[in-house]
Structures are given as structure tokens and as C-alpha cells.
């Protein structure tokens, strides 16, 4: 059994070499541009750029779709729901019973769906191309976040992977005691609650032991050095620059197309 359900298989050589902070910067800038306006042009431009950058991930479209399909479903549902409920402006496209879609509502739906995907992809880029240890190094050394907090979070990230394993083990152990996932809905719900409680107990014990092991290695002192240096290179200027260009391009395109719709106005 792998203890690494959540430790991502990292791909994309180039982005892997970039500093996590520059990747975070690019993602934040793009996200801000997307959040500033709800319109389909800016979302489509961002999404188009993201898809164009896909080869950098070094992962096939099918492989990516397999990993992010819940996001695709969510985007589709969001688009459908918006199209159904948004203000009905423009010409009627479909009118069957309670289902009324107009040009205006469908455009809003598409905007929401595209926006959802465009917002989610930068996160996927970072997850797929960033080693958690490198991220912790960068956050502590470049952004000067407190090292206790950063390393604590890093260690707990590893524990989350182990929890998945513990959950499966607890399920088996309880089945062996006579409470499995069979019976009525009420029985199943109670079982699920019991297993969740068991998992919390195990998680606390596990975390306590890990904390002891860390403390026994001198963790928790005031000053600390770093074995690995987190550095910025020309690549990072590029990554941050691409982020800025995408954000600016999307905003400009939306303004020129007349779809710019600033959320605060």
C-alpha cells in the first residue's frame, strides 16, 4: 500500500525547476484578473493561454483529464446552473416547460464555466510541478514565513497521505470486528461516524508521535539554518512575466471586446 496518495507524481521538468514563489505569483496575478470581472472573453483568453502552456506540464491531455475530471464536471454543472437561473436577456434559445435558456443566460453560463476552469488550472499547474519540500523552503526563505509554521505544515501534509492509508486500515479492522459497510442507511451512517472518530483518534496519536520525533531532533529552537537554498533564476522572471502577460492580455481583450464587467462597479 502506498503511503503517498497525496504526494503528487511531479511532472514538467521546466516548471519543476522554477521557484515555487514565482509560480505562486503568476497564479495569484492570473486569479486576480479573473476575479476582477465576470465575462467570457477574459476567462476564455486565460483558459486558452493555460491550454497553450499545457505542454510544459509534460502530461497528456487524457492523463490530465483523468486527474482533474471532477473539476470539469463542476465547471459544466456551474455553467448549466447559471444558464438556467441567470437573468433572461437576449433572444430565447430554448423554452421547454421550466427550462428557459436565452442568449444572455447562456453567455453568463459559459462565462462561469470557463472562469471556474481558468481559476482552477493555475492551482493544478502548481500542484503537478511543485515538490512540497521545495515549496516549504521557498515560503520560509523567500517569503520569510515562520519556519515552525511552514515545517509543521509540511510534516502534516505527509501525515494526510498516511491518513488515507489509516482510513482503509480502520475500515478493515472494523469489518473484522463485525461492523462493516453493510446494513441500513442509518447503520452505515453510524458506522461512518464511528470510523471518522477512530481516524481522528489515530491522527492525534500519530501527530503526537511525529511531534516527539521532531522535537527529539532539535526542532522548535529559535534560529535555524537551511540545508537547501531557495533561489530565483532567469526562469523565475520568465514564469512571473508570463503570469503578468496573461493577466494583462485577458483584461485588455475583455475591455476591447466590450465585455469587461468589473465586479465592484
Amino acid at each position, binding site marked *: *500500500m*502506498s*503511503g*503517498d496518495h497525496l*504526494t503528487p507524481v511531479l511532472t514538467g521538468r521546466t516548471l519543476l525547476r522554477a521557484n515555487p514563489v514565482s509560480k505562486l505569483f503568476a497564479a495569484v496575478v492570473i486569479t486576480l484578473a479573473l476575479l476582477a470581472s465576470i465575462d467570457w472573453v477574459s476567462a476564455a483568453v486565460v483558459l486558452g493561454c493555460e491550454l497553450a502552456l499545457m505542454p510544459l506540464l509534460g502530461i497528456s491531455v487524457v492523463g490530465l483529464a483523468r486527474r482533474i475530471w471532477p473539476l470539469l464536471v463542476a465547471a459544466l454543472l456551474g455553467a448549466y446552473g447559471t444558464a438556467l437561473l441567470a437573468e433572461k436577456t437576449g433572444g430565447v434559445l430554448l423554452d421547454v416547460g421550466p427550462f428557459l435558456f436565452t442568449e444572455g443566460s447562456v453567455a453568463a453560463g459559459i462565462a462561469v464555466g470557463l472562469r471556474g476552469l481558468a481559476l482552477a488550472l493555475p492551482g493544478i499547474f502548481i500542484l503537478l510541478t511543485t*515538490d*512540497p*519540500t521545495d515549496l516549504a523552503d521557498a515560503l520560509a526563505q523567500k517569503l520569510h514565513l515562520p519556519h515552525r509554521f511552514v515545517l509543521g505544515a*509540511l*510534516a502534516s501534509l*505527509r501525515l494526510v497521505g498516511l491518513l488515507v492509508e489509516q482510513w482503509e*486500515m*480502520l475500515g*478493515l*479492522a*472494523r*469489518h*473484522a*470486528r*463485525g*461492523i*462493516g459497510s*453493510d446494513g441500513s442507511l442509518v447503520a452505515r451512517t453510524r458506522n461512518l461516524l*464511528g470510523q471518522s472518530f*477512530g481516524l481522528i*483518534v*489515530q491522527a492525534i*496519536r*500519530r501527530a503526537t*508521535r*511525529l511531534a*516527539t*520525533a*521532531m*522535537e*527529539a*531532533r*532539535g*526542532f*522548535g*529552537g529559535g*534560529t*535555524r*539554518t*537551511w*540545508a*537547501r*537554498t531557495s533561489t530565483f533564476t532567469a526562469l523565475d522572471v520568465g514564469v512571473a512575466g508570463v503570469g503578468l502577460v496573461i493577466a494583462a492580455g485577458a483584461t485588455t481583450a475583455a475591455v476591447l471586446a466590450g465585455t469587461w464587467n468589473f465586479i465592484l462597479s
Partner: protein
Amino acid sequence: MTPAQAPSPGAASVSARGWGWRHAGRKAFAARHLDLDLRAGERVLLLGASGAGKSTVLHGLAGLLGSQDEGEQEGALLLDGIRPADARGRAGLVLQDPETQVVLARVGDEVAFAAENLAVPREEIWQRVHRALDDVGLDLPLDHPTTALSGGQKQRLALAAVLAMEPGLLLLDEPTANLDPDGVLEVRDAVVRVLDRTGATLVVVEHRVAVWADVVDRVIVLDAAGGVLADGAPGAVLGQEGTRARLAEAGVWVPGRPPAVGGPVPGGGGEVLLSARDLTVARTKRGPAAVEHLALDVRAGQALSVTGPNGAGKSTAALTLGGLLRPRAGRLEASPELAGAAGTDPFRWRSAQLVQRIGTVFQEPEHQFLTPSVGEELAFGPRRVGGTADPRRTGEIAERLRLTHLLGANPFTLSGGEKRRLSVATMLATAPRILVLDEPTFGQDALTWAELVTLLRELIEDGVAVVSVTHDADFIAALGGATLHVAGGAGRLVSP
């Protein structure tokens, strides 16, 4: 015996004066009235009954017992004349469980972690990392994933990780209790190599005396009532009949004095209860197969011991035989005698059907505790099966496993040995024909060990089939029956 060595300048000395520690929320002191002096460079084996406070002493020396809200201290415990908590990095502690000590994802980073915490300059950190990995004999790339190590390798990594602090005192808390025999020697030899180079002081806690008796130059036995029971050279302490008897009584594995077990070694078995043919087992649906093409029979009134190195797939095989994991390929069939009204595929049995037929005791007893009291734990299984629990039968089981005085206690508050007994008792409550145990003797002292073996022999005598995953050769010999050796993805069955 090792030749007396000149203490290295870096080695730490220890002194305890009337030292004691009581954990917050506990009435009794975990360790008390301790008076002790360890010279720099001494190699000490610390013994004592379960609950004598051995781990507490190690934690105290590691500086992990400190603040007032964690407990109450009396007397003084000093490392080089100062409080251990003020001597960060002077003592390095390795714990028992290889799985719960790994902090980071890559081998090099894991070793560097402690040096970083002590604010060692960067260039020196990597020198220390290389030296520490050399010392423990881990010849791996620095970016090797820590999850891909065997148990013995993980313990050597934990050792390397504390060596990076260049500690003057090395503290080992049952470092080999969870390892297979090869892993035990691997870790022991690495420790000796490290001590020979660094000259650090050593305090090791371990039930199994034979592993360490030849490499230490002093044995100290803690008294469960507080203070020291015996103290001296290994030959003197372990050679003295009075001390040997008292040690054995306290559950310590004294070389040449096997624990007294009741009943004879069980003989051949009866009818087949479960048969595996061309069975391939795997932990997860999509993951790799653990063991392939197994062919074996589980017989009533016979033991089947599954053995092999750490990570060979022993547990996976046993959990599959226990009806908990779906066979990847091949056949696992319950005989009509075992199946009764249920189908022949144990994996398809509902939970309530399973507990009447096969009981599986997990390595961590706590995973299987479901209620707030020992009495309710025992009644739980029968209630699942028949709606009520016969108090006479649960009473009998409690009596047999010496749990009667604990019926009102919370299972999580029991000692290690008591937890193990309770986890076996809960399974017996529904009278299964097959009992599966995963590493039942891990970290157990000699008393619990003997108790468990005696009980299992009685069960086998009564016609129960006992399937155990274990690397404990004494345990396998004591239960007799068939042995399945698992290694390299294949299983080899040795029948009696």
C-alpha cells in the same frame, strides 16, 4: 564485552539524583527515586518490567519532558551537569516504530533536518549528512524517497538523522522491536559502528537482552517500584541467579532462560477450513500484487505461521485469508464446515457473518477498539451477531485472558500487554473457527509473550486454526503447524 575505550571529548555524562517524573493527569510516578551516574562513553542497556519507566528516563534525557503542564518532576536529571532541555542536540533519541519517525520525503533532507534545527552552517550540514549515512551504512542517493525504505533501513535512517546532530549521548528506545531478524542485526551493527567512531555514550532500552548483551559494558535494571534493581557489567548482572530470576519475573528476555509456556507444542491438524489455490494477493485494487500463486490449506486445530522479511506481503496474505481483502486472482474457498449458511467466498461475507467464522487481530489493537469499556468490547461482537451477549460466555473469556478486574476500564488506558489480550478476547467472543493475528509478539515482553503462546496453544487444542504473521522464530516453534515463507512475491509452504 567490549574493551574499555577512552571517552571521546564529545561524549556526554549523565547523573540522576532522586529523579522522578509524573505525567500530568496520572496519579503514579512513571519513574522515581532514580540515583545514577553514567560516565562519558559508557554503553548501557536499560532493563526493567513494563511500566518501570524506561522510556520515561530516555525521554527525560532527550529533554522531551520539560514544562510544568506536561508533568511534575522531582530531584534532578543532568546531562553534562545541565538540564537536558537546555542541552538541545546533545542527546539523540531513536524511537521504536520506524513508521512514525520519518519527517520529510527525501533521505538527504531527513538527515539534514536535525542539523538545520541546530543552526549548523549549510556546507557543514551536507558533510554531516554524508558522514551520518556512511556511519549507518545507508548507501542511497540523497533524493531517494523515504517511503521506499524497508523497516531496517528506516531505523538506520532515524539513527543517521540523530547522528547529524553529533550527539554526545545516543538514546535508543526499543529500536529493533518491530524489525525482522535481518533488520535487527542491521540496526545493531550500525549502532556499534557509530559508537566505535564517535565514542558517544549509549543508553538502549530493549526487552530482548541477547541482541545487546555483547555490545554494552553495563546493564542497569530499573525497579518498577522506583530506583534501581541491579547495576553492573552484563556478565555480573545477567549471570547472577537471583537477578536473572527477578528479571525473568519482570518480563525481560534473559538469555538462556526462555519464558515458561503452558501446554505441549500442538500437533497435526484436522479438517480443512479454508483453501487457497493459485491465489494472488494485493493490498489495493490497482496496486502491485504482493504475493502470487499461493497454494495452502488452513486446517482446524493447526497453526499456520506466515513469515518473511519486512514488506514481503505477509500481512496482505493474512488479511486476504481473513476475508478482508479481495483476492487479486485465483481461488480462496471456505469449506462447507466453515461457511455454514454463508457462501464459500470469505470476502463476500457480511461483517456479522465474518466475525462468527474468522477473527482477525490487527497489529495495532487500538484500531479495533469500538466502545468505552472492556466489558462492552467483549459484548460487542456477540451483540452484532445475535442481538444479545451471553454474560456467562463473555465472563469466561474475560477470566481466561485475565481481564475480569478491568471490565470497567477504558480500552485506550490499558497497558500494551493488556491491550493485546483484549484485542484477542474480543475476537474470541464470537467463537470464530479461524483466528488471524498480525505480528502478535511485536514489542511484547516475555510475560505477555508466554501468556499469548499458552492461550493460542489451548485454542489450537480446542480445534481453532491460528494463522499468524510473525518473524518471531521462537513463536513459530512454540505453535508448531505449517509455515508459509513469503519473499520476493512468492510463498513457500513448509508443512509439518
